[in-house]
Every structure is written in structure tokens, then in C-alpha cells.
């Protein structure tokens, strides 16, 4: 199973689309934005370059979560690769758990690269006591997005999964305030944004870098979404692999 997870990760690293969208975009967006706004200081005295680092890392992790789950999984179902695995001794639950594990591995390059660029190019510094929780929160917080991607991949054919996953990803990024702060949004949209897993997920990171610790509401909302979307993914997986 470890070898399976390793192979899954390797395979995505060779996928050009994954590399461009997931690894390059967040870094490039960060460089552009940080070089324009980075030296401003937010109301609470934190440099914007630091907040942007969290936003772009969160965006990268969000897109990695969705890109490495929905479409590859839909393709494997359609092309018969899933059946190839189903006739090996690998149990059915292990297939979906491995997918989750591999997707989580694939989130790490986006996070680490954006952090690295922030440190090297913008001179961002944080105490270790903030780096470690930041990485962990932004890493574990991707579970709801991966679950969403797997649910999409289980329910839809590849042709449909591709646009649906893209729309979900952009909607979550936009509503979650990963590109523009939610503060600039109108009241209603902002109220909706605060219910999304993506806003709460990024908010974990923003609070950590500001030294506010972990807001309980954010943790609960992200965990709640993880449970709901995890259940949806499990249900969809069962439906997709049902042995009629």
C-alpha cells in the first residue's frame, strides 16, 4: 500500500498540468502580488507579504487537493484501471485511503514552495513556533478539499469532473478570500464566505502567522466540512464501486 501511495504521487509529479497549476501558479501569483503589496502593513501590524504567503499557499494546497483527486480518479474509474486494482488482493477501502494519502503528499510541494519563495524573496521571518503549526494546519486542513475532489471523481465521468472540479476550486478560492481579502466583499457574500471551508482553512493560517493561535470556530468549521465531505466521498465511492 505504501508503494501504491508512492506510485500515485510519482505519477502526479510527472503530470504537466499538475505542475503548472499546482506548483507554478501559486508561486508566480505570490511573487507578483507580494512585489506590489508586500511591503504594506495590515491593520494588525503584520506585513502583507506574510498574509499573502498564507493565501497563496492555501490556494496552492486547495488546487493540489482538487487536481490530484477528482479528474485522475474519474479517469481511472472510466478506463478500467479501478477494476484492475479491484481484482488484486488490495481491499476496496485501501484504494480510496491511498488516494487520500497520496493527495495529501501532493499538497506539500505547493505549501513548501510558497513558504520558501516568501522567505527567500520577501525575507519573511516567523518563529519556529508559528512555522510548524502553520504547516500542519494548512496540510491537515486540505482533507475536506481532497474529499470533495474524490466525491466529484466518484460521481462524474472525466469530461464532467474536469470542469466541475475547476469551478469548485475557483469558487472556493474566490469565496475563501484567497485571491482578494473577504473584507473587500459585500455583506451577504462575506457571510457566505465565512461558511466556506476555504475561508476557514486560510483563516487558520492567517491567525497563526499573526500570533493569535488557532481560532476554535475555524477548526470546528473545517473539521465539520471534513466530516460532511468525507461522508459524501465515502458514499460516492461505494456507489461507484457497487457490485451489482
Amino acid at each position, binding site marked *: 500500500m505504501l508503494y501504491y501511495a508512492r506510485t500515485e504521487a510519482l505519477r502526479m509529479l510527472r503530470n504537466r498540468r499538475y505542475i503548472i497549476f499546482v506548483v507554478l501558479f501559486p508561486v508566480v501569483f505570490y511573487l507578483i502580488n507580494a512585489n506590489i503589496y508586500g511591503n504594506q502593513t495590515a491593520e494588525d501590524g503584520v506585513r502583507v507579504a506574510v498574509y499573502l504567503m498564507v493565501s497563496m499557499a492555501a490556494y496552492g494546497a486547495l488546487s493540489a487537493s482538487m487536481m490530484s483527486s477528482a479528474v485522475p480518479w474519474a479517469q481511472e474509474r472510466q478506463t478500467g484501471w479501478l477494476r*484492475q486494482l479491484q481484482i488484486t488482493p488490495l481491499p476496496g477501502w485501501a484504494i480510496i485511503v491511498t488516494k487520500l494519502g497520496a493527495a495529501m503528499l501532493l499538497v506539500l510541494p505547493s505549501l513548501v514552495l510558497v513558504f520558501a519563495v516568501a522567505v527567500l524573496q520577501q525575507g519573511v521571518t516567523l518563529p519556529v513556533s508559528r512555522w510548524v503549526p502553520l504547516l500542519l494546519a494548512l496540510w491537515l486542513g486540505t482533507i475536506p478539499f481532497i474529499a470533495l475532489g474524490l466525491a466529484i471523481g466518484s460521481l462524474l465521468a472525466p469530461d464532467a469532473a474536469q470542469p466541475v472540479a475547476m469551478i469548485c476550486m475557483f469558487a472556493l478560492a474566490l469565496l475563501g478570500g484567497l485571491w482578494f481579502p473577504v473584507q473587500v466583499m459585500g455583506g451577504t457574500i462575506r457571510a457566505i464566505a465565512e461558511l466556506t471551508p476555504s475561508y476557514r482553512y486560510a483563516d487558520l493560517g492567517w491567525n497563526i502567522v499573526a500570533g493569535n493561535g488557532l481560532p476554535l470556530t475555524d477548526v470546528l468549521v473545517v473539521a465539520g466540512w471534513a466530516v460532511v465531505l468525507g461522508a459524501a466521498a465515502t458514499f460516492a465511492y461505494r456507489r461507484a464501486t457497487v457490485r451489482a
Partner: protein
Amino acid sequence: MDAIVFDQVSKDYGEVLAVDDLSLTIEPGRTVALLGPNGAGKSTSINMLLGLLKPTSGTISVHGRTPDQAVAAGAMGAMLQSGELIPELTVKELIDLIRRLYPQPLDLAEIVKLADLGDLVKRRANKLSGGQAQRVRFALAIAGAPKILLLDEPTAAMDVESRLRFWESMRDYAAGGRTVLFATHYLEEADEHSDRVIVIAKGKVVADGTAAEIKAGVGGHTVRFAIGEQPAAGLDRLPGVTAVEIVAGTAALRTSDTDATLNALYRATSLEVRDLTLTGADLEDAFLALTREP
């Protein structure tokens, strides 16, 4: 203990009855062809044998276990129809991935040799030709050293030479005392590469035996001649004739007694018989006779 047992197995997809009260037994170590036209229930039977589909009624056992248990124990390997590979992985990575999921797999080198993949191991799956991809899929099917190998129309995408090489590989694998069941609608394949042929049509077994036995069971010879526009009435009452078919001005009489039929054809009818040929039954005739719509 028998390798494969179907006991009164039926499978319907709503209105369509794909497999109809199918019972058959296959002993270990045999290479068996499941021969039938498209839609005969071959793929459905194989998918049920792998636990990918559940029978509507009846039971299937594999070495005394359920299909799911047999799969979990690593006893099954299969080449199913239309299975694609992961494009970004190399041949070696694909084989290694699958073989590591089995408890007692074959060595990588042995798989590469059996599947004839020598110079392809480092190639990515998306750079393989159709025939090469089929060989990789065969490699994946045998990677876990399964006791039972199922092949669902394995040569469908292959050219003639690839086919020959493929059947050699299959024979090498079967030689280790393993059971092989392959589905095909090619008669020659069933005839040449199996030691038993099970003919199915409309989800039922219609013949079962060696290719030679099946030919003999249908029996007799076929007399063909150009009948043109002449009336065909009465041909079916000639001595020995078991079936008459008229296609494009040619009459084909299946007969169990060639001498009597020919004698009567010339003496007891007023037909002008031209271009007469006489052929013994081949497996193709047998197959057509067995699977013909009633």
C-alpha cells in the same frame, strides 16, 4: 477440488438475461476456451467470477471459496476488456505496483520474460502501441502469480504476429499447472489454444468438450451447390438431410449420410445441380449450428 464451479448461475440486467442458469465445472490446470458470439454472456460470466458483478441467483466458487475471498487471497489475475494503463507510469512501475499487492508474486524479471516485454520496461504507458499495451496488461494479469488466469478477448486489439506471441506467452504461463479461462469469439483461437471448449450462446452452455468432440457432435458434412432460381421445396426431405440453407443462389444441405443425400439429389429431384462441393464440418460450422437463433 475444482478450480472453478458455476452452479445454476443467472444474471439479469433488468430486462436482459445475460447469463441463464449456467452450470459448469473446470478442473485445475486446464486451459479452457469460453467461445460464443457477442452478447453470449462471456464477459458477464468472467466479471462474476472476479466478484466485480454479483449473480442474480446461483453460486460461483473458486477453489472452494467465494470469488471475493479468492480475489482477496491473490488467487486471481485477469485481463479484462478495455482496461487502460496509467499514462504517466513506466511499464516497470506498473508491473511493480501490481505485483507488490499480491502475497507471492512472480519476480519482475520472470514477468518481463513471460510477457515478452524485454526492451519496453522503461517506457511510459502512454508511449506504447496497442499490441504492446496488451502485453503489459497480460503482464499485470500474471504479476501476482495467480492460480487462475482469466482473459477476456485478450487478442482483440492485436495483429497476427502479436497474437502468435501472445498465445505462446499464455501457454508458458499455463504450463506451471495454472488454470486459464479465456473468452473469445475467434473459433481458431478456441480450437488451437485450449484443451477444452465451452460454447455459450444466450447465457447458456450449448456445447462442452474438446474442439474435436464439438465438431464430431455436430457431425456430418455439408453439400453445397448452385441452385439459382430453382424451387428449393423438398430438399429438406431428402434422406440424411438435417438442415437446409439457401443463400444467394447457393443451397447448403447439412447431411448425416452423404451418399444417400447425393444419390437422392441426382435421382429423385429434377433440379439442375451445378458447382457441387462437399465439405466436412469444421468448428465454424459447429459453432454456427450451435449458436444459431432458433
